[in-house]
């Protein structure tokens, strides 16, 4: 009988983190980049909760994860507002086509 332990959680979070970074680097659509960022934040959340449970660190990790979820929501709200604004001015949200500032 396989026991689910700390390592399993850490592997899941490492995979999520890598997928998030991969998404951030390869995606052109700003919304998809933001989703990659959400994956990175959630991989950190899994770490916090798993460490708190298996390291017997008390409830601290869970509380931190709650804080991060709230912050991620705030960040998503602001990010989507900015992306909407970009769509109004440029009529698309592709990161590599928004380059009026490059010389």
């Amino acid at each position, binding site marked *: 009988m396989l026991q689910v332990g700390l390592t399993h959680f850490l592997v899941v979070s490492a995979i999520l983190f890598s997928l998030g970074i991969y998404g951030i680097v390869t995606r052109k659509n700003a919304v998809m980049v933001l989703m990659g960022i959400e994956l*990175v934040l959630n991989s950190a959340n899994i770490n916090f909760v798993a460490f708190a449970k298996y390291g017997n660190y008390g409830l601290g990790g869970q509380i*931190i994860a709650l*804080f991060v979820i709230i912050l991620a929501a705030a960040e998503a709200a602001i990010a989507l507002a900015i992306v909407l604004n970009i769509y109004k001015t440029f009529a698309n949200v592709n*990161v590599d086509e928004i*380059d009026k*500032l490059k010389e």
Partner: protein
Amino acid sequence: MANTNLYHSLSLITPEIFLSVALVVLVLADLVLHKDKKLIPYIALLGIIGTGYLTISQFGMSGFAFQNSASMFSSYGMITVDSFGIFFKSIVLISSLLIILFSFQSEEIQKINDRIGEYYALIFGMILGMFFMISATDLILIYLSMELMSLSSYVLAGFTKLRDRNSEASLKYLLYGAVSSGLMLFGISLVYGLTGTTNLYIINSLIQGPQINLFTLAFACILIFAGIGYKISSAPFHFWTPDVYEGAPITITAFLSVASKAAGFALLIRFIKTTFVSYVDPNGWWHLINVFDWKTLIIAVSILTMTLGNFSALWQNNMKRMLAYSSIAHAGYLLLGLVVFSNQGLIAILIYFSVYLLMNLGAFLVVMLIANRIGSEDIDDYNGLGITSPFLSVSLAIFLISLTGLPPTAGFIGKLYLFIALVDAKMIAVAVIALLNTVVSLYYYIRVLKHLYLVKPVKEPVAITTSFSNTVLVSVLMLPVIFFGIYFEPLVNFAKSCLLILGL
């Protein structure tokens, strides 16, 4: 017992409480005064002055706020008040005060007069985030305060929406910022896993034990450095800087280049000093715990930062973009003050920051006043302004010479103390590289002066007259730059009195 503890903690964060109240008052005033918003900037000014009074009255005070009484390390708290923090809070407050005064004069900001309440409320959000960043000694508070500051500044970067480049600046700032804060959070989660706590002082005592996995700790340190390095715009994380500085309204650009950098540096210095320094010997050298080689990392980053910043600045034609690269280069010089890991290096950083505040804000102010009149920030449009508008040109020249670091300006004193600290730490090679970088920077600063005075303009240049209040504002920044260049004793003494970082 618990109650006295809470009162003690609250009494230590009175400036932050006052800032939050001012923020709420600004939001409410924006609602109530929706017809006539002339009062709102003055409410913001009052808020800054009140916070300044409370911050100065804390001078000489030190202590921990919000201690965890359940833990065995109950004397250490989440927030530390000490003279080092108060120094950086004063830097943030002085620059906020000046930014609010700049906003009175800025054409860009006057065009969005109907949303002026939000503008100041967001600036106060940034200041509040910076205050907590400067005094945070808990990884989660560090993360939260960085996000508080970043979220406000993402919006402010694209606030005016007058041109396409405003929204582009805020998108770029947002994407880079969110990625680096995500990386930082992952690093924090690894540190939490290794030590079971987020308090820097407890981490300091735990990582001296033998059971810490050094590879994981090094990985976590690099991730956390990515988050802070983004805020101070150091080398591998600097890509946002030129675009955001060029696209954002100029008042916000100036604010980001001074206040947000100051908060980032305060955070970096406090983080490394509290977490990784085992003791400070009587001669003022910091002895690092032998778990992660910060010295090599920061030397490499700082040399890369200043070289990239200076060499990219050579080709810029937009003043804001040029000043952005110059501010990247200055972040590189400032990192050198940290890298010697001594009290002397810290004094050099404090002196450099006080000087940098004056000269950088001054340069941005003059660029703003010229842009108000000629509607452009291109260096080519500055041709011949030296003859038609002598006051602004001379003051711009003084600020740029000071940014280069030539005597008799204050910039020279800042660089001098930095190089002395490097030579005393026997890091001659690094000092030579920094010196060569200064020589490179001379080219692009002086190029502006060439355009002002020597290049013949194609069409007759406009004469820019300055109103009385603008003249006073420029002089307030220009005179200290010269004064501290000649008589720098008070500045040095003040920096020496602000050395205390609590702990250890």
